[in-house]
């Protein structure tokens, strides 16, 4: 398959993630959409790595994976602590910086 085919799939998945962030109000699903965007970019990294016959793209995927894991840990901890203080996790209601 040509490189552009993989990049198109990656672009579509990225757009689905962007639309998910825009239309959902549950922070957990917004988080999942962000993960979807990270994975879409990973797909294009691997495709370009394959096309250039170099392992560098796979290194970036590895680093993105680590950053995603760290991001999920901290983000879910924030969501849980918001839930503990407010008993409600609708993003439209989170309009204050102080608890």
């Amino acid at each position: 398959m040509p490189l552009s085919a993989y990049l198109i799939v990656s672009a579509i998945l990225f757009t689905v993630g962007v639309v998910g962030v825009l239309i959902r109000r549950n922070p957990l699903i917004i988080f999942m959409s962000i993960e979807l965007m990270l994975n879409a970019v990973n797909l294009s990294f691997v495709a370009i790595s394959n096309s250039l016959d170099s392992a560098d793209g796979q290194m970036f995927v590895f680093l993105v994976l680590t950053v995603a894991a760290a991001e999920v840990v901290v983000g879910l901890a924030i969501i849980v602590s918001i839930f503990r203080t407010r008993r409600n996790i609708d993003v439209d209601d989170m309009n204050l910086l102080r608890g």
Partner: protein
Amino acid sequence: MTGVQLSFYVLAVASVASALGVITFKNAVHSALSLILTLLFLALFYLQLGAMFIAIVQILIYAGAIMVLFLFVVTMLASEASDSELADRIPWQRWVAGILGLVLVGALSYLLFTGTAIDSSAKATGANSLAHVVATQGNTEAFGLALFHGFAFPFEVTSLLIIVAILGAMVLGRKA
């Protein structure tokens, strides 16, 4: 149509469909399961592209560890986790988001089709090429050689990032 093409189209349709499931399911647990499915399809894409180590790591770390963490939190907040039926604060938000999404995917596809091709001099050749290293050393060995020769410093910085993330989670999870 060759086998590679057939598997590409099947995987492309399946991954986009399960990605749409993530953003359309009302129940957050269903969204999480749909995301796991998307991640598994992406792992198959990586296998197709010859990135075996990345495919396995994707299944173990992403679909395994990260998504289990997600499911823990989703089920913990289950009563609140299903998307509220509250009226939208901005009623036209969905339509605008859909139109903007179409604009984004159109612009990206336009750029991919009309943009300049990757310079062929950027392509690795001879003993440096990934195919050559994979053929002589093996797949995971090729990954390890590239990681610890060219990317040793970013790899070490990664450990700092993980320490900071653990500390952050501990501080946030402390009994306030």
